[in-house]
Protein backbone atom coordinates (compact mmCIF):
# COMPACT_ATOMS: atom_id res chain seq x y z
CA UNK A 1 0.00 0.00 0.00
CA UNK A 2 1.38 3.40 -0.89
CA UNK A 3 1.33 6.53 1.23
CA UNK A 4 -1.87 7.84 -0.31
CA UNK A 5 -3.74 4.63 0.22
CA UNK A 6 -2.50 4.39 3.81
CA UNK A 7 -3.44 7.96 4.47
CA UNK A 8 -6.89 7.42 3.01
CA UNK A 9 -7.39 4.33 5.07
CA UNK A 10 -6.40 6.12 8.26
CA UNK A 11 -8.70 9.02 7.52
CA UNK A 12 -11.70 6.78 6.91
CA UNK A 13 -10.91 4.58 9.90
CA UNK A 14 -10.62 7.60 12.15
CA UNK A 15 -14.33 8.13 11.65
CA UNK A 16 -13.81 11.85 11.13
CA UNK A 17 -14.11 11.59 7.40
CA UNK A 18 -16.86 9.92 5.44
CA UNK A 19 -15.83 10.14 1.81
CA UNK A 20 -12.71 10.35 -0.25
CA UNK A 21 -12.99 11.66 -3.78
CA UNK A 22 -9.95 10.65 -5.78
CA UNK A 23 -8.76 8.70 -8.77
CA UNK A 24 -8.68 4.99 -9.53
CA UNK A 25 -7.30 3.04 -12.41
CA UNK A 26 -9.77 2.98 -15.27
CA UNK A 27 -9.81 1.14 -18.54
CA UNK A 28 -7.15 1.52 -21.22
CA UNK A 29 -4.61 3.18 -18.96
CA UNK A 30 -6.82 6.13 -18.07
CA UNK A 31 -7.57 7.19 -14.54
CA UNK A 32 -11.15 7.85 -13.51
CA UNK A 33 -12.73 9.44 -10.49
CA UNK A 34 -13.61 7.25 -7.57
CA UNK A 35 -15.70 7.80 -4.46
CA UNK A 36 -14.49 5.82 -1.49
CA UNK A 37 -16.56 5.52 1.65
CA UNK A 38 -15.08 2.37 3.17
CA UNK A 39 -11.53 2.06 4.54
CA UNK A 40 -11.05 -1.31 2.89
CA UNK A 41 -11.50 0.27 -0.53
CA UNK A 42 -8.70 2.75 0.04
CA UNK A 43 -6.31 0.58 -1.93
CA UNK A 44 -8.16 1.53 -5.09
CA UNK A 45 -6.74 5.04 -4.91
CA UNK A 46 -4.00 6.05 -7.27
CA UNK A 47 -2.27 9.30 -8.04
CA UNK A 48 0.00 9.65 -11.04
CA UNK A 49 0.26 11.53 -14.31
CA UNK A 50 -2.78 9.81 -15.69
CA UNK A 51 -4.91 11.54 -13.02
CA UNK A 52 -5.46 14.68 -15.03
CA UNK A 53 -9.20 15.06 -14.65
CA UNK A 54 -10.44 18.09 -12.76
CA UNK A 55 -12.54 16.49 -10.05
CA UNK A 56 -13.42 19.70 -8.23
CA UNK A 57 -16.63 19.40 -10.24
CA UNK A 58 -17.92 16.80 -7.78
CA UNK A 59 -17.39 18.87 -4.65
CA UNK A 60 -20.70 20.68 -4.73
CA UNK A 61 -22.79 17.83 -6.09
CA UNK A 62 -26.06 17.02 -4.37
CA UNK A 63 -25.12 13.33 -4.41
CA UNK A 64 -22.38 13.79 -1.84
CA UNK A 65 -24.08 16.55 0.12
CA UNK A 66 -25.02 14.30 3.01
CA UNK A 67 -21.69 12.52 3.33
CA UNK A 68 -19.70 13.23 6.43
CA UNK A 69 -16.65 15.41 6.09
CA UNK A 70 -15.04 14.86 2.71
CA UNK A 71 -11.51 14.49 1.45
CA UNK A 72 -10.50 15.28 -2.09
CA UNK A 73 -7.31 14.13 -3.76
CA UNK A 74 -6.43 17.09 -5.90
CA UNK A 75 -4.22 17.60 -8.90
CA UNK A 76 -3.20 21.18 -9.62
CA UNK A 77 -6.20 21.91 -11.83
CA UNK A 78 -8.52 20.68 -9.14
CA UNK A 79 -6.75 22.84 -6.57
CA UNK A 80 -7.18 25.97 -8.64
CA UNK A 81 -10.81 25.17 -9.27
CA UNK A 82 -11.36 24.75 -5.53
CA UNK A 83 -9.92 28.22 -4.95
CA UNK A 84 -12.15 29.67 -7.65
CA UNK A 85 -15.19 27.84 -6.29
CA UNK A 86 -14.33 29.22 -2.86
CA UNK A 87 -14.18 32.74 -4.28
CA UNK A 88 -17.57 32.12 -5.86
CA UNK A 89 -19.08 30.81 -2.68
CA UNK A 90 -19.87 27.36 -4.03
CA UNK A 91 -17.80 25.39 -1.55
CA UNK A 92 -17.33 26.24 2.09
CA UNK A 93 -14.30 26.47 4.29
CA UNK A 94 -13.98 23.44 6.56
CA UNK A 95 -16.39 21.23 4.61
CA UNK A 96 -13.58 19.13 3.23
CA UNK A 97 -9.89 18.47 3.35
CA UNK A 98 -7.61 18.48 0.35
CA UNK A 99 -4.77 16.05 -0.20
CA UNK A 100 -2.29 17.60 -2.58
CA UNK A 101 1.15 16.49 -3.60
CA UNK A 102 4.49 18.20 -3.25
CA UNK A 103 7.08 18.04 -6.02
CA UNK A 104 8.76 15.07 -4.33
CA UNK A 105 5.49 13.17 -4.06
CA UNK A 106 4.89 13.92 -0.38
CA UNK A 107 1.28 14.28 0.61
CA UNK A 108 0.26 17.74 1.76
CA UNK A 109 -2.85 18.15 3.86
CA UNK A 110 -4.69 21.38 3.21
CA UNK A 111 -7.52 22.06 5.61
CA UNK A 112 -8.49 25.67 5.08
CA UNK A 113 -9.05 27.81 2.03
CA UNK A 114 -6.20 30.00 3.14
CA UNK A 115 -3.84 27.01 3.09
CA UNK A 116 -5.12 25.98 -0.33
CA UNK A 117 -4.72 29.50 -1.66
CA UNK A 118 -1.14 29.62 -0.37
CA UNK A 119 -0.34 26.27 -1.91
CA UNK A 120 -1.86 27.27 -5.24
CA UNK A 121 0.39 30.33 -5.28
CA UNK A 122 3.34 27.94 -5.65
CA UNK A 123 1.88 26.28 -8.75
CA UNK A 124 2.37 27.10 -12.40
CA UNK A 125 -0.50 29.05 -13.89
CA UNK A 126 0.14 29.28 -17.60
CA UNK A 127 -0.72 27.04 -20.48
CA UNK A 128 1.41 24.04 -21.30
CA UNK A 129 3.70 24.36 -24.28
CA UNK A 130 1.44 22.16 -26.39
CA UNK A 131 -1.60 24.25 -25.44
CA UNK A 132 0.21 27.49 -26.13
CA UNK A 133 1.24 26.12 -29.52
CA UNK A 134 -2.38 25.34 -30.36
CA UNK A 135 -3.40 28.85 -29.38
CA UNK A 136 -0.69 30.31 -31.51
CA UNK A 137 -1.62 28.14 -34.46
CA UNK A 138 -5.14 29.56 -34.42
CA UNK A 139 -4.11 33.10 -33.69
CA UNK A 140 -1.68 33.00 -36.60
CA UNK A 141 -4.44 32.05 -39.05
CA UNK A 142 -6.05 34.70 -41.20
CA UNK A 143 -9.46 35.90 -40.06
CA UNK A 144 -11.17 33.92 -42.83
CA UNK A 145 -9.26 30.77 -41.97
CA UNK A 146 -10.09 31.15 -38.32
CA UNK A 147 -13.77 31.50 -39.18
CA UNK A 148 -13.61 28.48 -41.46
CA UNK A 149 -11.83 26.48 -38.77
CA UNK A 150 -14.35 27.26 -36.07
CA UNK A 151 -17.34 27.01 -38.40
CA UNK A 152 -16.22 23.50 -39.18
CA UNK A 153 -15.65 22.64 -35.53
CA UNK A 154 -18.93 24.16 -34.38
CA UNK A 155 -20.83 22.36 -37.12
CA UNK A 156 -19.84 19.08 -35.51
CA UNK A 157 -21.08 19.95 -32.02
CA UNK A 158 -24.08 17.89 -30.94
CA UNK A 159 -24.89 20.04 -27.92
CA UNK A 160 -24.50 17.19 -25.51
CA UNK A 161 -23.21 19.69 -22.94
CA UNK A 162 -20.47 17.36 -21.74
CA UNK A 163 -18.26 20.45 -21.70
CA UNK A 164 -20.66 22.06 -19.27
CA UNK A 165 -21.00 18.99 -17.09
CA UNK A 166 -17.27 18.51 -16.83
CA UNK A 167 -16.49 22.10 -15.90
CA UNK A 168 -16.34 22.82 -12.17
CA UNK A 169 -17.33 26.42 -12.90
CA UNK A 170 -20.56 25.48 -14.67
CA UNK A 171 -22.61 25.03 -11.54
CA UNK A 172 -25.70 27.09 -12.39
CA UNK A 173 -28.83 25.06 -11.70
CA UNK A 174 -30.48 26.75 -14.67
CA UNK A 175 -28.12 27.40 -17.52
CA UNK A 176 -28.87 30.32 -19.84
CA UNK A 177 -29.10 27.81 -22.66
CA UNK A 178 -32.14 26.27 -20.98
CA UNK A 179 -34.01 29.56 -20.67
CA UNK A 180 -36.70 29.92 -23.29
CA UNK A 181 -38.16 33.29 -22.42
CA UNK A 182 -36.37 34.83 -24.14
CA UNK A 183 -34.83 32.04 -26.18
CA UNK A 184 -31.22 33.18 -25.88
CA UNK A 185 -29.81 30.31 -27.88
CA UNK A 186 -31.59 28.26 -30.49
CA UNK A 187 -32.26 24.73 -29.35
CA UNK A 188 -31.21 22.54 -32.31
CA UNK A 189 -27.54 21.81 -32.71
CA UNK A 190 -26.98 23.75 -35.91
CA UNK A 191 -23.79 25.70 -36.42
CA UNK A 192 -25.29 29.05 -35.44
CA UNK A 193 -26.75 27.79 -32.20
CA UNK A 194 -23.58 25.88 -31.44
CA UNK A 195 -21.46 28.97 -32.04
CA UNK A 196 -23.72 30.98 -29.77
CA UNK A 197 -23.49 28.32 -27.09
CA UNK A 198 -19.71 28.17 -27.19
CA UNK A 199 -19.26 31.93 -27.26
CA UNK A 200 -21.59 32.26 -24.31
CA UNK A 201 -19.84 29.50 -22.40
CA UNK A 202 -16.47 31.17 -22.95
CA UNK A 203 -17.77 34.60 -21.95
CA UNK A 204 -19.31 33.19 -18.80
CA UNK A 205 -15.91 31.77 -17.91
CA UNK A 206 -14.09 35.07 -18.31
CA UNK A 207 -11.91 35.58 -15.27
CA UNK A 208 -13.04 32.19 -13.97
CA UNK A 209 -11.46 29.60 -16.28
CA UNK A 210 -8.48 27.92 -14.61
CA UNK A 211 -7.35 26.50 -17.98
CA UNK A 212 -7.67 22.88 -16.92
CA UNK A 213 -8.93 21.98 -20.39
CA UNK A 214 -11.47 19.56 -18.98
CA UNK A 215 -14.18 20.75 -21.38
CA UNK A 216 -12.06 19.80 -24.35
CA UNK A 217 -11.16 16.41 -22.84
CA UNK A 218 -14.82 15.71 -22.13
CA UNK A 219 -15.97 16.54 -25.64
CA UNK A 220 -17.01 13.31 -27.38
CA UNK A 221 -16.28 14.94 -30.75
CA UNK A 222 -12.90 16.15 -29.57
CA UNK A 223 -13.63 19.76 -30.51
CA UNK A 224 -10.85 22.03 -29.24
CA UNK A 225 -13.36 24.16 -27.32
CA UNK A 226 -11.03 24.57 -24.37
CA UNK A 227 -9.12 27.06 -26.51
CA UNK A 228 -12.09 29.45 -26.33
CA UNK A 229 -11.97 29.62 -22.58
CA UNK A 230 -8.17 29.76 -22.67
CA UNK A 231 -8.54 32.84 -24.83
CA UNK A 232 -10.66 34.66 -22.26
CA UNK A 233 -8.35 33.48 -19.49
CA UNK A 234 -5.27 34.76 -21.29
CA UNK A 235 -6.97 38.07 -22.06
CA UNK A 236 -8.08 38.47 -18.44
CA UNK A 237 -4.49 38.02 -17.43
CA UNK A 238 -3.14 40.33 -20.09
CA UNK A 239 -5.68 43.13 -19.72
CA UNK A 240 -6.54 42.99 -16.04
CA UNK A 241 -3.77 40.89 -14.51
CA UNK A 242 -6.47 38.57 -13.25
CA UNK A 243 -5.77 34.86 -13.00
CA UNK A 244 -8.64 32.63 -11.99
CA UNK A 245 -8.11 30.17 -9.19
CA UNK A 246 -5.46 32.18 -7.39
CA UNK A 247 -7.52 34.18 -4.94
CA UNK A 248 -10.37 33.30 -2.61
CA UNK A 249 -11.55 36.91 -2.72
CA UNK A 250 -14.50 37.85 -4.90
CA UNK A 251 -12.51 39.79 -7.47
CA UNK A 252 -13.63 38.36 -10.78
CA UNK A 253 -12.08 40.20 -13.71
CA UNK A 254 -15.45 41.35 -15.04
CA UNK A 255 -16.96 42.13 -11.64
CA UNK A 256 -14.44 44.82 -10.89
CA UNK A 257 -12.78 47.53 -12.95
CA UNK A 258 -10.09 50.14 -12.90
CA UNK A 259 -10.69 53.62 -14.30
CA UNK A 260 -7.35 53.28 -16.06
CA UNK A 261 -8.25 50.05 -17.89
CA UNK A 262 -6.80 50.52 -21.32
CA UNK A 263 -8.41 49.61 -24.62
CA UNK A 264 -7.78 51.02 -28.06
CA UNK A 265 -11.05 50.45 -29.87
CA UNK A 266 -13.59 52.77 -28.28
CA UNK A 267 -14.09 55.96 -30.28
Amino acid sequence: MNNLQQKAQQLLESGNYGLIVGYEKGTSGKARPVFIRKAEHASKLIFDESCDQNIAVYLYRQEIKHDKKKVIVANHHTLKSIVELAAENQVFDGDFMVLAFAGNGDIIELNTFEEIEKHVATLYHGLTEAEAAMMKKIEDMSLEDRWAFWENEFSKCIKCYACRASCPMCYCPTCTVEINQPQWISVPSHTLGNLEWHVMRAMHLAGRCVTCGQCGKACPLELPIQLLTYKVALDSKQFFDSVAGTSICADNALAIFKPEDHENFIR
Partner: protein
Amino acid sequence: METNNTNNFEPKVVAFVCNWCTYAGADLTGTSRIKYATNVKIIRFPCTGRIDFMLLMKAFANGADGIIISGCHPNDCHYTSGNFHARRRWMIFRNLLDFIGMDVNRIVFSWVSAAEGAKWAEVVNESVDQFRQLGPATSYQKLIKNSEFQEVE
Protein backbone atom coordinates in the same frame (compact mmCIF):
# COMPACT_ATOMS: atom_id res chain seq x y z
CA MET B 1 -11.26 43.44 -42.72
CA GLU B 2 -13.31 41.29 -45.02
CA THR B 3 -14.31 43.37 -47.99
CA ASN B 4 -17.38 42.20 -49.85
CA ASN B 5 -18.18 45.44 -51.52
CA THR B 6 -21.56 45.00 -53.11
CA ASN B 7 -23.06 47.90 -54.98
CA ASN B 8 -25.82 49.81 -53.24
CA PHE B 9 -25.55 47.63 -50.24
CA GLU B 10 -27.20 49.21 -47.20
CA PRO B 11 -26.15 47.57 -43.95
CA LYS B 12 -28.65 46.87 -41.21
CA VAL B 13 -27.33 48.50 -38.11
CA VAL B 14 -28.62 48.43 -34.58
CA ALA B 15 -27.30 50.80 -31.93
CA PHE B 16 -27.34 49.94 -28.26
CA VAL B 17 -27.04 53.14 -26.29
CA CYS B 18 -27.34 54.28 -22.72
CA ASN B 19 -30.20 56.51 -21.71
CA TRP B 20 -28.20 59.27 -20.06
CA CYS B 21 -25.39 60.11 -22.43
CA THR B 22 -25.67 58.73 -25.93
CA TYR B 23 -29.47 58.62 -26.12
CA ALA B 24 -29.53 62.23 -24.99
CA GLY B 25 -26.64 62.99 -27.35
CA ALA B 26 -28.64 61.50 -30.22
CA ASP B 27 -31.58 63.68 -29.17
CA LEU B 28 -29.26 66.65 -29.47
CA THR B 29 -28.24 65.53 -32.95
CA GLY B 30 -31.93 65.74 -33.74
CA THR B 31 -32.54 69.13 -32.19
CA SER B 32 -29.42 70.38 -34.00
CA ARG B 33 -30.86 68.92 -37.26
CA ILE B 34 -27.58 67.22 -38.11
CA LYS B 35 -28.21 64.58 -40.76
CA TYR B 36 -27.01 61.01 -40.67
CA ALA B 37 -27.64 57.71 -42.39
CA THR B 38 -31.05 56.09 -41.90
CA ASN B 39 -29.56 52.64 -41.45
CA VAL B 40 -29.01 52.98 -37.74
CA LYS B 41 -31.83 52.36 -35.28
CA ILE B 42 -31.46 52.90 -31.60
CA ILE B 43 -32.42 50.70 -28.68
CA ARG B 44 -32.38 52.44 -25.35
CA PHE B 45 -30.78 50.95 -22.25
CA PRO B 46 -30.41 52.50 -18.82
CA CYS B 47 -26.64 52.12 -18.97
CA THR B 48 -23.96 50.46 -21.07
CA GLY B 49 -23.46 48.23 -18.04
CA ARG B 50 -26.89 46.74 -18.85
CA ILE B 51 -25.92 45.66 -22.37
CA ASP B 52 -25.57 41.91 -22.32
CA PHE B 53 -23.10 40.49 -24.82
CA MET B 54 -25.82 37.96 -25.68
CA LEU B 55 -27.84 40.83 -27.16
CA LEU B 56 -25.06 41.40 -29.65
CA MET B 57 -25.17 37.73 -30.56
CA LYS B 58 -28.94 38.09 -30.89
CA ALA B 59 -28.52 41.05 -33.20
CA PHE B 60 -26.12 39.17 -35.44
CA ALA B 61 -28.38 36.13 -35.40
CA ASN B 62 -31.22 38.37 -36.58
CA GLY B 63 -29.26 39.61 -39.53
CA ALA B 64 -27.50 42.75 -38.33
CA ASP B 65 -24.57 43.78 -40.52
CA GLY B 66 -23.17 46.06 -37.89
CA ILE B 67 -23.67 47.10 -34.31
CA ILE B 68 -22.92 50.36 -32.52
CA ILE B 69 -22.48 50.39 -28.77
CA SER B 70 -22.29 53.76 -27.14
CA GLY B 71 -22.45 55.21 -23.67
CA CYS B 72 -21.09 57.81 -21.32
CA HIS B 73 -17.43 58.72 -21.37
CA PRO B 74 -15.33 57.19 -18.59
CA ASN B 75 -15.96 58.98 -15.30
CA ASP B 76 -19.21 60.47 -16.66
CA CYS B 77 -21.43 57.45 -16.14
CA HIS B 78 -24.78 58.40 -14.64
CA TYR B 79 -24.38 55.35 -12.45
CA THR B 80 -20.70 56.06 -11.70
CA SER B 81 -19.19 52.88 -13.05
CA GLY B 82 -21.51 50.96 -15.39
CA ASN B 83 -19.45 52.01 -18.40
CA PHE B 84 -16.24 50.83 -16.75
CA HIS B 85 -17.76 47.39 -16.27
CA ALA B 86 -19.02 47.45 -19.84
CA ARG B 87 -15.58 48.39 -21.11
CA ARG B 88 -14.00 45.35 -19.46
CA ARG B 89 -16.74 43.14 -20.89
CA TRP B 90 -16.17 44.45 -24.42
CA MET B 91 -12.40 44.07 -24.16
CA ILE B 92 -12.83 40.35 -23.52
CA PHE B 93 -15.79 39.84 -25.84
CA ARG B 94 -14.26 41.62 -28.79
CA ASN B 95 -11.09 39.55 -28.62
CA LEU B 96 -13.09 36.35 -28.30
CA LEU B 97 -15.08 37.15 -31.43
CA ASP B 98 -11.86 37.91 -33.24
CA PHE B 99 -10.52 34.58 -32.05
CA ILE B 100 -13.40 32.69 -33.63
CA GLY B 101 -12.86 34.60 -36.85
CA MET B 102 -15.65 37.14 -36.69
CA ASP B 103 -14.75 40.56 -38.03
CA VAL B 104 -14.82 42.81 -34.98
CA ASN B 105 -15.00 45.81 -37.26
CA ARG B 106 -18.70 44.99 -37.45
CA ILE B 107 -19.02 46.32 -33.91
CA VAL B 108 -18.25 49.97 -33.23
CA PHE B 109 -17.79 51.13 -29.68
CA SER B 110 -17.92 54.76 -28.76
CA TRP B 111 -18.40 57.18 -25.91
CA VAL B 112 -20.84 59.91 -26.87
CA SER B 113 -21.93 62.36 -24.19
CA ALA B 114 -25.23 64.20 -23.97
CA ALA B 115 -23.46 67.24 -25.36
CA GLU B 116 -21.94 65.50 -28.36
CA GLY B 117 -24.77 65.60 -30.87
CA ALA B 118 -22.32 66.19 -33.69
CA LYS B 119 -20.13 63.33 -32.57
CA TRP B 120 -23.10 60.97 -32.65
CA ALA B 121 -23.81 61.85 -36.27
CA GLU B 122 -20.13 61.35 -37.02
CA VAL B 123 -20.02 57.97 -35.30
CA VAL B 124 -23.13 56.82 -37.16
CA ASN B 125 -21.92 57.98 -40.55
CA GLU B 126 -18.44 56.60 -40.13
CA SER B 127 -19.77 53.30 -38.84
CA VAL B 128 -22.24 52.95 -41.70
CA ASP B 129 -19.43 53.68 -44.16
CA GLN B 130 -17.30 51.09 -42.45
CA PHE B 131 -20.11 48.52 -42.56
CA ARG B 132 -20.78 49.33 -46.22
CA GLN B 133 -17.13 48.65 -46.94
CA LEU B 134 -17.38 45.33 -45.13
CA GLY B 135 -20.45 44.37 -47.12
CA PRO B 136 -23.21 42.06 -45.92
CA ALA B 137 -22.27 39.79 -43.02
CA THR B 138 -22.48 36.86 -45.38
CA SER B 139 -20.51 34.38 -43.36
CA TYR B 140 -22.84 34.81 -40.41
CA GLN B 141 -25.91 34.98 -42.60
CA LYS B 142 -24.96 31.65 -44.12
CA LEU B 143 -25.22 30.16 -40.64
CA ILE B 144 -28.61 31.80 -40.16
CA LYS B 145 -29.86 30.38 -43.41
CA ASN B 146 -28.63 26.89 -42.59
CA SER B 147 -30.19 27.08 -39.17
CA GLU B 148 -33.55 28.07 -40.60
CA PHE B 149 -33.35 25.17 -42.99
CA GLN B 150 -32.53 22.80 -40.19
CA GLU B 151 -35.24 24.11 -37.92
CA VAL B 152 -37.86 23.72 -40.64
CA GLU B 153 -36.63 20.22 -41.22
